[in-house]
């Protein structure tokens, strides 16, 4: 069994000191302390604690059903939308508890954007897909502002060149990879600080995957990104930090290179070498 007791929040943090210079000075933006999640009677997450550094990519890996997606959804409180789901423990972003009663969950989700597993553009035009978030949050006041925001969001998502001449076409008509980048652009448009990605490439072909990975690489300079992935190669390619989950517990969390080259826990090693999962 897991040697790290799930009651100890320090279990995960022990590993951090080995970090190389690149993230040593980074201030931690997101911190989770002893987070638990229950679906009805069933417990899905057992006391997970971690610090996610700013402006970097953190990957969650682990076998199916290990709770990595569930844990990801805690950061923008998307678990609230699932009936019978209860979240315990504490999560702070910039030192603010996201479960405090005075927090506006709608505003939280604008600050912590989310990209889903399957590309889910709305059945609206490409333009309206991007403008949707800014409009509901009142971020744009005029047509010109909206135009500018749509353009800059699409440019950041690397989609502008491909769709600039057909912004009025339905977003559902794009290819899978383009749809996923549209969803990323849509998320960027609300001006988030954090972007959560739940297996964003699992429905895409290898070429579209590599384009999205390049995009994640660029976005890292402006946003704090947490990505859940099934592919260990992807985690190795895009992330600076990696967390390995198993059966709802955080087994190991550290620099990506260290996790893949020199894992400390036996279970991590077993997963990475393909023996579990």
């Amino acid at each position, binding site marked *: 069994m897991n040697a790290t007791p799930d009651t100890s929040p320090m279990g995960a943090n022990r590993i951090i000191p080995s970090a190389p210079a690149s993230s040593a000075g980074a201030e931690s933006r997101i911190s989770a302390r002893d987070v638990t999640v229950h679906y009805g009677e069933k417990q899905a997450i057992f006391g997970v604690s971690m610090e996610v550094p700013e402006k970097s990519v953190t990957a969650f890996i682990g076998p199916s059903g290990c709770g990595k997606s569930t844990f990801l959804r805690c950061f*923008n409180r*998307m678990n609230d*939308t699932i*009936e019978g789901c209860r979240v315990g423990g504490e999560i702070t972003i910039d030192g603010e508890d996201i479960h405090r009663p005075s927090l506006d969950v*709608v*505003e*939280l*989700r*604008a600050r912590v*954007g*989310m990209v*889903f597993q*399957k590309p*889910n*553009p*709305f*059945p*609206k035009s490409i333009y309206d897909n991007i403008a*949707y*978030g800014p409009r*509901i*949050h009142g971020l744009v006041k005029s047509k010109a502002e909206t135009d500018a925001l749509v353009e800059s969001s699409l440019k950041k998502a690397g989609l502008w060149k491909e769709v600039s001449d057909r912004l009025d076409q339905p977003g*559902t008509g794009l290819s899978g990879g383009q749809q996923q980048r549209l*969803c990323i652009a*849509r*998320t960027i448009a*609300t001006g988030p600080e954090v972007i959560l990605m739940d297996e964003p490439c699992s429905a895409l072909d290898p070429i579209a995957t590599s384009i999205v990975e390049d995009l994640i690489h660029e976005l890292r300079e402006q946003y704090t990104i947490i990505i859940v992935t099934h592919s260990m190669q992807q985690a190795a390619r895009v992330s600076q930090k990696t967390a390995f989950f198993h059966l709802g517990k955080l087994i190991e969390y550290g620099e990506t290179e260290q996790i893949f080259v020199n894992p400390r826990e036996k279970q991590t090693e077993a997963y990475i070498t393909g023996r579990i999962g």
Partner: protein
Amino acid sequence: MTSVLIAALALILMGVAYQQGVSRSRALAGASRLHSRPQYHGAFLALWATVPLLFVLLIWVVTSGMIQDWYIASQIPAEILPGTTEYASAAARLRNIASGFGVAGEIAPWEAEAGEGLARFMTILRLSIVALGALLGVAGLLVMRARLSPRLRARNHVETVIKTVLIFCSIVAILTTIGIVVSLVTETVRFFTYVSPVDFFFGTVWNPGYSTTSNEASGSYGMLPLLAGTVMISAIAMLVALPVGLMSAIWLTQYATPRLRNVIKPVIEVLAGIPTIVYGFFALVTVGPALSAFGDFIGFGINATSALTAGIVMGIMIIPFISSLSDDIIRQVPRAMRDGSLGLGATKSETIRMVIVPAALPGIVGAILLAVSRAIGETMIVVLAAGNAPILRFDPTEPVSTFTVTIVTALTGDADFASPQSLVAFALGLTLFVITLMLNIGALVIVRKYREQYE
């Protein structure tokens, strides 16, 4: 009688044949492996024993009337010419004597003799039909029993029969529809020999003259007042049902907790189970007088029986229809769509207004069209609550009449079925049928288009 006998015979044969098939194939199984399990051999034999029998029964059902008519024709004296009313009544008398039903007046000696002859003839015929059926069944059983072998593909044969039965069932449904349409069309064509289609479709006055002496058309048969009444009541019904039904569907799918939904949804659906005649009472006894009193209160004359009363009550009747259809359609909108919107920080109601309802809109439009076609065809509520006043006017507080009400009055009076006063019912029925058919096709096309979007 014959049918019962044949059915009993068929059941017995079926049981025996099945038993034979199973036991015989079991015996064969000793030699080599069976292609099909013994049960299939049993079913195979049972089918061969009963299908010929049922075929004979079918032929009997179709032809017995014709055979009887042929026998009667041979008995009726030559001076009564076929095709006259005297001939028809003589034939009816013979049939009634033969069946022991009894007839009015004196029975002439030739009638008594012919009636008895007819009864005897039909009895012999029936018995021989039963015998023929039994013979064929037993023959089928024996011949096919001899053909049982381990290699017999009984399983595949049974499959073929099942497929044929399924095809036959769907053909029955199609033929029934065609039959209804054909009868509607022929009667409508007969009606149009009395009244010109132009007067019917574009006439603004509905005032069929009832004449007891002739079958000539008197009065006017313009359907526009009825169309206006139908459209007005349906429109009022939709104004009531649409907002209530749609919003309750949205609440049920998006806001209600599962426990609450499990209570509320069946309660709403109980509304759909109330017989429409009961809605009719409700309109007549409760809603009509209440509306009328309310009209007096605000100084505005509202008739107790009016388009408004019928429309409101019909709207209540349609609420569960709209709400459960929309419920299904809204549920079909992928959860990913909802999550995408919530994940961008939209509130629940923003998500519903801007993402879920637009995505479900084609399906909702389909549901609305289906509901409208129900409203147009609805009868009992309007019979009781609309006031039956076929006058072209557009004031919902006045009594109106509709297609369905007029059809009821045309066919329930004591007018001759061949008179234009009754035949007009078929013309109205056909018009109603075409309108609802169009709405249903429109709804189907829209719903299908919507389905393609997510698959």
